[in-house]
């Protein structure tokens, strides 16, 4: 939980944009450094938590904290510019100021994953919520079994974190399976071609002593969960994050609920078992 020294729980921390990375034509990653010295040291978060990012004059928007908790001193956020706030964020250059509120929500129970094999499955722009966990695990590599990453997008240019995909591919201790939807590949594409669920079925990671982590648009999750069942994963072994419209991020404004579960307070990280218990309203 974040310790709010000041009393106004809606007041954001100010952060300066240190680096701007264009992942795809409309997806951008911003590297942020908190302006206030005290906040820079005291800001502690866990993989899977999210923040409310302010573009002053436009409002706030909700994305996960994309950088790994093991990397101190800065945080990263990755967003696609679709709405008013994200388009305003896109206009920020290096040195500009924006606001960050958080960290909010629960996180991946990384301690329970020690000693287990990990299977990361992500689609399109849903890699960032898993990327924070991937880097977290890679920084503590010896604590885990083998790590498989299945990541796909509509076309090659839609793949985010291309540099890191390269890095993961070259590492010996990670099995990366890149894919693009049929027809999205260019001639010299070295990854697979096919939808993420089918590619996952081919990769067929073993369910024995392993944890699956899924993140993607609702349609992808709907087709990926059955694949995991066929591969022998039980519902407790599969984790996912839900993306609902949020405003306050701390359980007050009443809009992110799926059934009686507040995605911002009781989530965003849930096991497949919890997701199946929720009514179909997300």
């Amino acid at each position: 939980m974040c310790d709010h020294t000041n009393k106004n729980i809606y007041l954001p921390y100010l952060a300066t944009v240190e680096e701007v990375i264009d992942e795809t034509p409309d997806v951008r990653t911003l590297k942020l450094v908190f302006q206030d010295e005290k906040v820079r040291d005291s800001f502690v978060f866990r993989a899977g938590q999210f923040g409310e990012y302010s573009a002053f004059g436009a409002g706030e928007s909700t994305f996960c904290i994309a950088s790994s908790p093991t990397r101190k001193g800065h945080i990263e956020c990755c967003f696609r510019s679709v709405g008013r706030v994200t388009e305003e964020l896109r206009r920020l250059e290096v040195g500009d100021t924006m606001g960050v509120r958080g960290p909010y929500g629960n996180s991946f129970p990384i301690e329970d994953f020690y000693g287990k094999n990990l299977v990361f499955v992500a689609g399109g722009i849903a890699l960032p919520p898993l990327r924070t966990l991937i880097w977290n695990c890679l920084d503590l590599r010896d604590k885990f079994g083998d790590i498989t990453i299945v990541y796909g997008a509509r076309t090659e240019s839609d793949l985010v974190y291309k540099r890191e995909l390269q890095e993961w591919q070259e590492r010996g201790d990670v099995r990366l399976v890149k894919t693009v939807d049929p027809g999205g590949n260019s001639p010299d594409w070295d990854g697979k071609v096919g939808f993420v669920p089918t590619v996952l079925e081919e990769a067929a990671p073993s369910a024995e002593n392993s944890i699956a982590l899924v993140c993607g648009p609702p349609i992808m999750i709907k087709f990926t969960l059955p694949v995991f069942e066929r591969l022998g994963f039980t519902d407790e072994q599969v984790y996912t994050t839900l993306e609902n419209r949020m405003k306050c991020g701390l359980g007050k404004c009443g809009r992110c609920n799926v059934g009686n579960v507040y995605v911002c307070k009781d989530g965003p990280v849930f096991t497949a078992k919890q997701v199946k218990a929720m009514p179909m309203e997300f």
Partner: protein
Amino acid sequence: MTSLIDTTIYSAITEAIRVEAARILSEGEVTAVVGYAAARRKGSAQPIVINTAADAGQLIFTPSCVNNLAVYLTKAKKEISKTGKIGIVVKGCDLKALVGLMGESQLKREDMYLIGVPCIGVLASTVQPATGLTAETIAPKCTECDAHLPQGCDFVPAQTPVVTKLEHKYAAEIARLEALTPAERWAYWKEQFTKCIKCYACRQVCPFCFCEQCLCDRNKPQMVDTTPRPAGNAAWHIVRAMHLAGRCAGCAECERVCPMDIPLNLLNRKMAMELKELYDYEAGFDVLDKGPLTMFTDKDDQSFIK
């Protein structure tokens, strides 16, 4: 105590509507009938959508049947299945709204089976549902009604409405406001708009507010402030009145449903008066394929233009 307006013909009208609805449902001429049914509170009524002839018995028509049911046929109301012909119970003012919607090619006449109602008036929003209909408790719009007997419907009960002459409430209020100075009018409207809490009931019940995404729900660009501060409220109500100019049929649902009793229909009646004066347009029973603000003549007034 002012005399009760004789509403005995409403029970005969209720009977006629039930028989007609049962007939068109059982013969399969319509897939559903949108009408009024009794609600829990004594004397109150609520809209209802019935699909079987057996349910036709629930239909009623009383002075509490105040809703304009046309809103249920617009594309804003996605929940009601629009397969096949739909029957709808319409008062004169509601029918004018339907005619306006047909003019804007939102609805087709052959998709609707119109059950007209000879209406002598319904209750105002400020009275309890069970009170009797008198010159005091009647809705302001009914004091100026010229559509007691709807025209061009598929079926109208045989009753003829006996109408008592009533003092026109809106015309009097508009005249009073026009006599004030601009500063006094601004103060009056500022006080009214300050009461608004942006619940958008006026927009959601209006048959002509069928936009996919209302100007006020858009934030790229943010033309109208969303917070219910007086500044945002004033902008909202001015934009609403402008977007309904030349389209509003005078069903005064916006004024009826406003939780804060803001006299919203004054704005629409004033616009209607201006359009009558400027372009001789008036909401009526015959479908016009072009509203006053979607057409022009080269002799339009331009005295205000340098």
